[in-house]
């Protein structure tokens, strides 16, 4: 659609769980805009508030502050006491357990949204047939729900969410109950289904690989806050927050202080315990600020001989080298620290080897160091 306005707008969402002393602040001012027609993922560890945010959009939870609108219609506004109940919102939802009603057949489950609107029998039959074809379940109309496999149940859940032509599809960890192989298959099916229908879809997951594979945009959440939003490649290659760097894939963190800066996204210099390193600063990083460099293990070429004329070369000793088929996963001791390095299998190394690591300056992302919120310090650093 030409008009790329936002389908879902979430503004300063607040939510508490529990009463009195056991009150927990689960959403702390979450603000998000979800573009029409996109597959938008809420990603974060369990307890980060991603499912709660989704349930607030669905109206299954009532926020304690903020505003939500869907397709331009305000469905919740705390100050103005607006609350559109779940059943009046233009949504379709797929639950983690699929929530297929066991007392109904496939067709009855799928037809439910139309049945309660008292649509004509002909219309229901036609639309159920259509939607079952879309999810690849045609011919299974009369099968009782308990006689479905996990993958089939999921397709039924999708069909039921789709049949009413919702403005927004809400998917609450829909793949977490499937076995690994089916998960990968359903992942691409969801993506192609979303492409074909171009229904704005919110996908909740804690699995970063799943999020990277499926999303147009990812909103990384942690501790009830939105950390960062971006396209998968951008978040992976150029994270601007320390949490994003550590949560999405593996990374190495090296602490230091910015000593030279030439504006956003232009190479600068940082002083670390390992010496002066070149890096690309995140927007907003200032001179003399404590910073941290994040570099992915696959962006560190490993040399047996000291390379000449290159920046950011560190000397180290291989402590561990695990052959994974497509790569060696190495731990290299540099000073007191261990760096993770993935190297091509041609480049055979073994523990004890003396090696030189080149931290490709274009892949060294400089992030504010004091942004420690929720960072899991399992990587390098202090």
């Amino acid at each position, binding site marked *: 659609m030409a008009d790329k306005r936002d389908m879902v707008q979430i503004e300063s969402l607040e939510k508490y769980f529990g009463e009195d002393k056991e009150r927990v602040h689960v959403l702390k001012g979450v603000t998000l805009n979800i573009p029409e027609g996109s597959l938008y993922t809420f990603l974060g560890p369990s307890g980060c508030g991603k499912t709660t945010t989704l349930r607030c959009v669905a109206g299954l939870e009532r926020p304690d502050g903020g505003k939500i609108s869907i397709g331009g219609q305000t469905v919740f506004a705390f100050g103005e*006491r607006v609350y559109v*109940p779940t*059943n*009046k919102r233009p949504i*379709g939802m797929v639950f983690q357990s699929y*929530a297929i*009603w066991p*007392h109904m057949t496939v067709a009855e489950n799928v037809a439910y949204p139309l049945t309660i609107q008292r649509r004509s029998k002909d219309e229901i039959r036609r639309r159920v047939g259509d939607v079952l074809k879309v999810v690849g379940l045609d011919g299974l109309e009369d099968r009782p729900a308990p006689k479905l496999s996990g993958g089939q149940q999921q397709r039924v859940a999708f069909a*039921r*969410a789709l049949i009413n032509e919702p403005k927004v599809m809400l998917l609450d960890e829909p793949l977490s109950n499937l076995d690994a192989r089916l998960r990968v298959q359903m992942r691409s099916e969801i993506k192609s289904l979303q492409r074909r229908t171009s229904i704005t879809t919110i996908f909740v997951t804690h699995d970063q690989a799943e999020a990277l594979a499926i999303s147009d945009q990812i909103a990384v959440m942690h501790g009830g806050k939105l950390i960062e939003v971006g396209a998968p490649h951008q978040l992976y290659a150029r994270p601007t927050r320390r949490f994003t760097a550590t949560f999405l894939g593996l990374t190495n963190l090296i602490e230091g202080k910015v000593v030279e800066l030439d504006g956003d996204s232009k190479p600068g210099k940082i002083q670390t315990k390992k010496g002066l390193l070149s890096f690309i600063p995140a927007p907003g990083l200032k001179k003399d600020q404590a910073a941290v460099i994040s570099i992915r293990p696959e962006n560190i070429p490993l040399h047996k001989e000291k390379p000449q004329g290159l920046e950011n070369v560190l000397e180290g000793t291989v402590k561990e080298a695990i052959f994974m088929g497509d790569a060696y996963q190495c731990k290299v001791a540099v000073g007191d620290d261990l760096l993770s390095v993935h190297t091509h299998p041609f480049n055979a190394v073994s523990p004890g080897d003396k090696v030189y690591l080149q931290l490709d300056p274009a892949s060294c992302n400089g992030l504010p160091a004091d942004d420690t919120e929720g960072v899991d310090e399992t990587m390098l650093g202090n």
Partner: protein
Amino acid sequence: MKRFNSQTFILIGATLFVLYLAGVPLVMLLYGSIRSAPIGEPGATYTIQNYVKAYFDKEFYLLLLNSIYYGLGTCTLTFLIGTFLAWVSERTNTPLKRLFVVMSLIPFIIPGILSTISWILLLSPKIGLINLAIKDVLGLESAPFNVYSMWGMIWAESIHLYPLVFLLMSAAFRNMDTSLEEAALTAGSSTFTTFARVTLPLMRPAMFSVLLINFIRGIEAFEVPALIGVPAKISVFTTKIFLAIHQFPSDFGLAGAYAVTLLVISTTGVLIYGKITRKEERYATVTGKGYRPRVIDLGAWKYLTLGISFLIFFLAVILPVFVLLWSSFIPYYGVPSRELMGKMTWANYQYILNYPLALTAFKNSFYLSVGSATVVMLLTSLIAWITVKTKMPGRGLLDTMTFIPIAMPGIVLGVSLIWVYLTLPIPIYGTIWVLLLAYITKFMPYGIRAASASMIQINKELEEASLTAGGTWFQTFRKVLLPLLMPGFTAGWIYISIIALRELSTSILLYSYNSTVLSIMAFDLWEGGQYTYVCALGVLMVLLLLVMAFTARKLGARVGIAE
């Protein structure tokens, strides 16, 4: 914000209804017991005279003693019978044991009044079949058994009440983690030591709670004390209350004082019971996992256990049913003989079917039974939704309120409701509606148990899926929750409709000519000495119960999930 949608309306309505049903009778009972004059009479004042009169009567202590004696006897005997059968069927290799499960539950379906009558017909010193037969065979002068005694009462009560013990103890045997016993065996203890040192201690909480609940049931019982105790001049609380109201003029205040006393005893029991069972749930033995109980090989002894089990079945089912059937087909009461056999007739049934009140009683009983079971299950399903699925403040209290009537003996509920509907300006006293309200109140606790248990098993996402699909709360309740609740709903419905159809102790204080029910009709016929007619009526009642239970099961299977 739309505040009053259908959901809020229905839920608030259900809550208020429960509070009214459970709370008002309690308040009015306490109020009535401290009023000086009968209800509605001018010039009544507050007084403690009723309690003084009750407690300073030396008969009161005899009454208390009798009630306790009766309660203890009943709980001991039911415990022995029920536990023996449960042990045989769960833990031994006795042949045909699966059959016991079905057969030992048959007394459930026989109304208490019929069971009592059948034991009078069997053990009465003058007309009891067993007595007459033994006298005849052994040539005795006097009857060997006398049902009109404390032991006679305990026997008649126990042989009817033991199925509950059987069910509870079977569950306790079944739920026990057998690895606990196996651990003892591998540690070198013998089968007997294991039983004494491990099995029994593990089951102690279950056993105590079963004893307690049957003690309470014994103290609350009405049928046996009324039909056997009153002629035998053995008075207990329930019959004393009944007589205080049935004498002329009625002494409502005194009845109230006795009723409050009985209520205090039964409430204490229920509270202790609740405490134990809650602790029991924390006990490691009950995990809901499907353990395969260790079956003990009894060797040749298994024929002895089979024999005893059959004897119990014979005494609990065959004899009473036989005596009812036999008496319903003979023109006057007597021992089966060739002569009487030749006189067998349908006349008793014809009499019942032409009895002026019979049609009314059948209709009333049927409507009340179906009506109360349906209302209770719908109401408690709503309440269970609130208490299980929401975080509404006060939901714990609501759950308790729904459960309170379990502590109210039927006769006490009857007294309370007399006060309520003679005082409040709701003109339903003496109509079938007051009976309906009484039944709903009385059976709410059973309903809430069945409903909450099923509600807990329903994943919340099944409901939410309906809401996100555009269903309103009411549509969700009707189209998703109710069908999923159906198995539990049906089970609760069948149970309630059965106990409603045989209800006597509450109805007897609240009925009028036009709102007579079957159990009252049986009681009146019995009081009038028309034994053979009562038996014909009883057989018809049991048939009606069987048909209802069967139909409900069929219907429930069609609506709910096919199992």
